[in-house]
């Protein structure tokens, strides 16, 4: 709420609508991920939707607020943990069979969603900062 009064980013209408719809976009991404075995969807599409919700914050509020909400070390740590879980499922898979929460249908799309979402948001930040630096150099 206090971010709205700042001058960075787009107009007041865009900021209010972003604040209302942000949670629903995130929830829809998680739904697409977990629904991949019963209907259309999957890990990659859900991950891209999650990344698009962060991109949405960044386009509406500006760079600082988005980076304040999602720190860089958090991104790196979550991607690393997801990749390690991938490796764990691949190597020691038999211990997961008993627990239904950690079955293959749930854990692989979730890890893929985290990796894809964090990675694409990192790429977007890198490209935007690259073109900003370009503008400053001119």
């Amino acid at each position, binding site marked *: 709420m206090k971010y709205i009064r700042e001058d960075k980013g787009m107009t007041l209408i865009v900021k209010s609508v972003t604040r209302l719809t942000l949670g629903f976009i995130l929830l829809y991404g998680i739904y697409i991920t977990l629904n991949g075995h019963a*209907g*259309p969807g*999957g890990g*990659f599409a859900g991950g891209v939707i999650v990344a698009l919700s962060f991109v949405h914050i960044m386009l509406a509020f500006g760079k600082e607020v988005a980076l304040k909400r999602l720190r860089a070390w958090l991104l790196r740590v979550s991607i690393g943990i997801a990749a390690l879980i991938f490796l764990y499922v691949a190597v020691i898979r038999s211990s997961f069979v008993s627990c239904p929460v950690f079955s293959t249908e749930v854990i692989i799309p979730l890890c893929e969603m985290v990796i894809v979402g964090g990675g694409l948001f990192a*790429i977007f930040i*890198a*490209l935007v900062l*690259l*073109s900003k*630096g*370009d503008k400053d*150099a001119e």
Partner: protein
Amino acid sequence: MTVYILCLILFSIGLYCVVRKRNLIKIIIGIGIMDYAVNLFFVLIGYREGGRSPIFASDQVIDKMVDPLPQSLVLTSIVIGLAITLLLVAIAIRIYEKYGTFDITKINKLKG
């Protein structure tokens, strides 16, 4: 068969754009169009007349499915297309920062 020929026309447009145009962003767009055409061709091969989508349902009336294997391959191919686009855009922005232009012939001239 006409659908295949339309798909070939789409691929030819992308090939023309890649070979003929001189702007870097236009070349990225041409690669994207070729990517779309190849994905479309794969899915067109697996289509069955009057089939249904490859999802089991409890009350299935039609028994025949569309071929699910090309769809599963194209799912990977779309990801590769996105990766190619991202990497090319990063290289293009870097080239613009270095040379100040997107024109490939001017980049050649400035190098010597």
